[in-house]
Each structure stands twice: as C-alpha cells, then as structure tokens.
C-alpha cells in the first residue's frame, strides 16, 4: 500500500492536513491526485500559531504545500481487508487455485519492493498493534 494509494483510499474520510507554513486544515477528503493535490469539504482552518480559525465549505490544497496528513488509525486495516477481499474474489473467479507456499503475491499486482512487506505479515520487530 503506497502512501498515495492510502490517500486515495481515504476519500470521504476525515483528516487533518498541515501545510509547510504550519496552517492546518481539518475536513473530509473529497478528492486527490498523484501530485497530492487535494480537495476537502466542511473544513476548519487553523492559523500557524493556533490562535485564528476559519470555517470553509470546501477548499483545494496544492500538494506541494503540504507537510503531512493525519488520517484515521483504522484506515490501514480497512484497506488491508479490502485488498484481501479483492484477492479472494479474484482467486475464486479464476477457479480455485489451492493456495500454497509459493503463491504469495500472485493475486495482487506487485508494486515496489517495500509495498508488499506491509501486507499479510505484520509485526517484525516493529511495535505494531500486537498482531
């Protein structure tokens, strides 16, 4: 799950966007593209010092001005589940491959080296959610 695919999967989800200048935008993601340009709806804008607030119906943010986005914690799990479902569906549609050891990653388009590792096998030495 590449960072930008995660962003795509966050459509209609609430998020907090902080710009490089420190301003923050709280709202629901309407749409995004591969430049990380985004549109939000029902936005609360906060100035960099945190002392001024604005309410915006909808706003567009150019990707290059973003510092980071905070998305719901549940999003990663939701996306993983969705991928698993899609894989199962694809497998059964192609007619019952009995899955075995060498089968990992076949049902899913393989992305960069890193993308797979966050997949079915979690944990490693990281302190995840204890899974």
């Amino acid at each position: 799950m590449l960072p930008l695919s995660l962003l795509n999967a966050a459509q209609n989800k609430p998020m907090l966007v902080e710009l490089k200048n420190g301003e923050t935008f709280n709202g629901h993601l309407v749409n995004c593209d591969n430049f990380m340009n985004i549109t939000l709806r029902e936005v609360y804008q906060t100035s960099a010092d945190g002392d001024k607030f604005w309410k915006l119906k909808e706003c567009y943010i150019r990707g290059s001005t973003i510092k980071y986005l905070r998305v719901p914690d549940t999003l990663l799990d939701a996306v993983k589940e969705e991928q698993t479902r899609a894989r199962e569906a694809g497998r059964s549609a192609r007619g019952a491959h009995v899955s075995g050891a060498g089968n990992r990653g076949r049902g899913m388009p393989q992305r960069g080296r890193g993308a797979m590792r966050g997949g079915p096998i979690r944990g490693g030495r990281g302190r995840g959610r204890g899974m």
Partner: protein
Amino acid sequence: MDSLIPFTTSGSLVDCVDRKMLVVLRDGRKLQGVLRSYDQFANLVLEDTVERIYYRDFFAEAWKGLFLIRGENVVLLGEVDLDKEDDVPLRQVPWEELLPYHRQEIAAKKKREEVKAQVLFEQKGFCKEGGEGDGY
C-alpha cells in the same frame, strides 16, 4: 547482498518497513512510529505515531496515530533500537508539563539565530538568510 541493491530511496528503505522509526521533520518535529510504506519521494506512512519533545534530560510524548508525511519535509529517518531505547537516561514527564519549556527553547533558539544572522550581515559581509532559515 548490500551491493546488489542500488542506493535509491527504495533500496535504502526496504529494510526499515515494519520497524519502529524515528522521523525528524524540517520544522524540527520528532515523530516515532512504525514505518508501513514509502515511495520514491520518501513519502512515508507511519502507524501508531507519537510525537516527542525533549528538554534537558526530560522528554514527553503525545499520541498522534496514522501519518502520511510528504517526503520533502523529512530530514532524517532512523531505526529505533528496541533493545536499547529503554536504557536511554531520560525521564518521561507529562506532555502539558514539558510543552512550555519546549516552546520557550524554540523561541530562544529563533531569537539567537536572528541575532546571529544580523551580526553576520552587518559586520561580516554575509548575505541575509533566505526565507525559512531553519538550516536544512
């Protein structure tokens, strides 16, 4: 094995996935979380992220959750040694307690940098700092 992987973002970060990482941002913020994903721009996905602030031999943590960090803003990404992190001789205190000291330190640093820039400009013939002036 090392030599088989070229020095690219993807090459250097594969081994860091699913590990607890420290990320330092250009604004000076320090985040710790589990690296779940990244791309060629070093955009990062950090899960279970906490922000840490330090003052003298104290530190404080604030829970932040799931982050998507735009690569441009990353200064440093380093693995946290889980065996050693508990031996660090720092004392954890509540966030609200440490925050004023932390803010004060940032303000003092900013002031110092301004004075320094002014002296360099007026007496040493340096040009003025451009824009951000955060040294990165």
